[in-house]
């Protein structure tokens, strides 16, 4: 069951127009920049995939990664907790012009909705957002005198994630705080595509130290010197 894909182009080749895509990372850490850029390159060359929905904590920064996806015009909707930031012009411009939709989700609820999708839990109750406009229209319930909002799972067609070590059967580890949403998204997508910095044979990761078991990963592609998002943003790199 070798899940290795030889190159980035092939790894993202099956993502269709209108796909709902989870993309790992938080701020400048843990984003699969090379997978994202391969997807943008495909869109520029073929016009597809267009009108995708992207799920990430943020809405991209600078001129690379998710910001470049938005700038390229391939994103119809963002589902995220924190689209606003000092260098998120790509999203801001489209949003204020009404050219991109936004579903704003509290960060912990976003994480739990993704985890719920991966765990087969269609709905759960959380105190977060109770009594706020983000709970409008959602069922509420009281448990032991405290009030909660019912939230639904959040699934995706594809997840693009970034691991540190990977093996051929899809087991993954993550580097430092680059872990963030990546292990959750791996669970919640129909098809999970991981770029890894170091790819080894099955068994090269100590079974006790696997963070994402291979069952959650469908494709692994090695990118041995990945770009660091924050560095790209700070140096003004444009993709």
């Amino acid at each position: 069951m070798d899940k290795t894909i030889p190159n980035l182009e092939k790894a993202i080749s099956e993502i269709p127009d209108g796909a709902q895509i989870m993309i790992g990372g938080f701020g400048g850490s843990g984003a699969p920049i090379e997978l994202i850029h391969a997807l943008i390159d495909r869109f520029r060359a073929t016009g597809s995939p267009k009108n995708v929905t992207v799920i990430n904590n943020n809405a991209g920064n600078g001129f690379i990664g998710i910001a470049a996806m938005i700038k390229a015009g391939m994103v119809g909707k963002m589902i995220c907790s924190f689209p606003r930031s000092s260098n998120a012009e790509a999203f801001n411009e489209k949003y204020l012009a009404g050219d991109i939709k936004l579903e704003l989700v509290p960060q912990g609820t976003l994480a739990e909705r993704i985890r719920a999708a991966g765990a087969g839990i269609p709905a759960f109750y959380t105190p977060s957002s109770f009594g706020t406009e983000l709970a409008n229209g959602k069922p509420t319930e009281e448990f032991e005198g405290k009030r909660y909002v019912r939230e639904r799972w959040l699934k995706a067609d594809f997840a693009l994630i970034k691991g540190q070590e990977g093996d051929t059967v899809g087991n993954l580890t993550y580097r430092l705080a680059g872990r963030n949403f990546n292990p959750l998204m791996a669970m919640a997508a129909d098809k999970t595509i991981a770029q890894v910095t170091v790819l080894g044979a099955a068994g090269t990761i100590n079974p006790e130290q696997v963070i994402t078991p291979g069952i959650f990963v469908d494709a692994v592609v090695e990118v041995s010197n990945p770009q660091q998002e924050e560095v790209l943003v700070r140096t003004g790199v444009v993709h």
Partner: protein
Amino acid sequence: MTDFNIPDVALSNAQIAWRAAQDIEDGSYVNLGIGFPEMIAKFQPDGRDVTYHTENGVLGFGKAPLEGEEDWDLINAGKKAITLKPGASFFHHADSFAMVRGGHLDLAVLGAYQIAQNGDLANWRVGSKGVPAVGGAMDLVHGAKRVAVVTDHVTKDGKPKLVESCTFPLTGVGCVTRVYTSLAVIDIADGKFVLKEKLPAVTLAQLQSVTGATLHIDGEVADLIVPEDL
């Protein structure tokens, strides 16, 4: 009730397990229930790469260790000692059942007391007496892309285990899609038992006579042929 002697023709558990094993697909993730279903792994066809999951938090385990070489911190849900294959991983119980409930397993195979024609399964207790125990069965019947059962076709005292509706307490509702019995292979679709294979030595009428609900035919009924020396 029967005009034939079932023990004369019925498959052994090993033969039922062998037949079930033929349907395990290459590259699949599989959970085999405690007891009889565990035997299926022994008959996994050559050349198929299958990853076995066990509820207590192991993916990618292999054969039992030699006696005396057990590490009792390395066990399966049946509390039997196991070994690891390359690429194995450990995880906690919530992640383990996320794999089960979240639709990540391709196949779960369980035992049964009764299976109803709508796919209901009863396999955790036969009445209200004694100490009840459910384990992971009620979770395993949900989430796996395919839920199959291996079972004798009738109970020890000759009563049908495939029934119109279960009389024993249910494990899950409408969850089973294929049943491998000692006499036949039967799919469950649209609330009906659909006969796919039967032993050549058993007539359709005979098979129907030991089945508690109507057996439907939809397309060819193949011969159920298994190795004799199991």
